[in-house]
């Protein structure tokens, strides 16, 4: 039964695209993939914009300190099976922003990344190839295995409990009132 359903995964991957402080170069290229020239919708790929219904997370940008809590939250809200594609040099390593005071040097410090797409900005052909690789990985994943972000310092608790983890992460990253000192 589930073998039968798994055959349809590669025919309808839905994308969630999140920009963690990128310069918009890679975002434009991702949109170009979905536009008339490259037309990813002919493979059933649509940009859903909704983590609860998405299968592939396309992340661009070096994770800025403001964006990381949202990134973790989006990753946790995606139902399994899911894959993550880091698009562009910034998302892979931090790119030109590496070791700056406000960035976290790439996505894989916080969430497990399945495919890295290099380039500044990543070319549409590269992105399509990366998504294709991601679908190959996605087809091997099981929905029973819960995937959570890498635990960061100061966040403990049951690794399987989504809600507690979200609350702890929000307490750590989101409650920064004006006047409170930055890390």
């Amino acid at each position, binding site marked *: 039964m589930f073998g039968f359903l798994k055959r349809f995964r590669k025919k309808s991957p839905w994308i969630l695209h999140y920009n963690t402080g990128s310069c918009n170069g890679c975002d434009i290229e991702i949109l170009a993939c979905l536009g008339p020239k490259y037309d990813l919708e*002919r493979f059933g790929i649509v940009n859903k914009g909704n983590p609860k*219904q998405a*299968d592939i997370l396309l992340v661009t940008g070096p994770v800025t300190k403001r964006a990381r809590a949202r990134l973790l939250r989006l990753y946790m809200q995606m139902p399994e*099976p899911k894959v993550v594609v880091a698009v562009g040099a910034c998302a892979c390593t931090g790119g030109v922003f590496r070791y700056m005071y406000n960035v976290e040097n790439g996505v894989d410090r916080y969430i497990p990344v399945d495919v890295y797409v290099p380039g500044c900005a990543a070319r549409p052909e590269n992105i399509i190839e990366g998504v294709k690789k991601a679908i190959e990985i996605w087809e091997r994943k099981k929905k029973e295995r819960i995937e959570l972000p890498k635990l960061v310092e100061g966040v403990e608790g049951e690794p399987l409990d989504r809600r507690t983890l979200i609350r702890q992460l929000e307490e750590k990253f989101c409650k920064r009132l004006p006047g409170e000192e930055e890390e």
Partner: protein
Amino acid sequence: MKAILLLVALLSPILGGIVYGIERKLKARMQNRMGPPLLQPFYDFFKLADKRALQIHSFHSLMGIAFFVAAWFAVFALLVGPNILVAVFLHVLALLFFTAGGFSVKSPYSVMGALRELAHILAAEPILVFAVIALYLTTGSWDIEGILSSGKVPLFEMPLLFAALVLTIPIVLKRSPFDISEAHQEIIGGAEIEYSGIFYEAVYTAKWLEYIFIGTLIFLFGGSNYLIGFLLVALTFLLVWLIDNSTTRLTVHHMMKFAWGVLLPLAAFNVFWIAIWR
């Protein structure tokens, strides 16, 4: 005839899925794209069945399923069941289940989408009721078999109401310029945002049923001349998709003004005119 109607009612999710597939393909061609395969909605359906479903709470998930069941009941009432007026009321009931689900979660987009969905109901359903009343006035029958074998073509007696009904379809199907309740770039689907996995599947499929529901209503305007009926359905859907591709989203106020200021007077004038003229 009864057997054919029952078959259409039973297969309506599949037929609706095919119509949705045709829509996606045609819209892509209008935008100079290749577009997804014709059976893409079913690929999505099977993929969603194999995803983990994250529930908010059980009432929310139940309302998603109730939306699908009530929408299917509405199609049944239209094609097989008691009469077409009941079908319109069941259609409202289905949308109310959906709004109840949207209101039951904390997500602001979901609540906003549900509020806008109520505006859609207010705008569209009176015109559907007028259409059903006018079908009765011209053919003298409340049920589909009576209308299809009445020997009359309702379109010729109520062109104004038919025009109003055609312009209501974007409101019912949530197509541009009236895709207000599920504005994908703005509130990411509205009331459907919190559904995932198999519960989203129910909501996704319930929308296919609306094609069959509204398509049948349009078909009835051909009366006993089936060729006119099929032509009307094809041309109407083509027009709706063309409008969808070439317009931008309006606001709720525009929609209410248009529906209650233009469409409803048109429909009411036509109905009163028929009632007095008879």
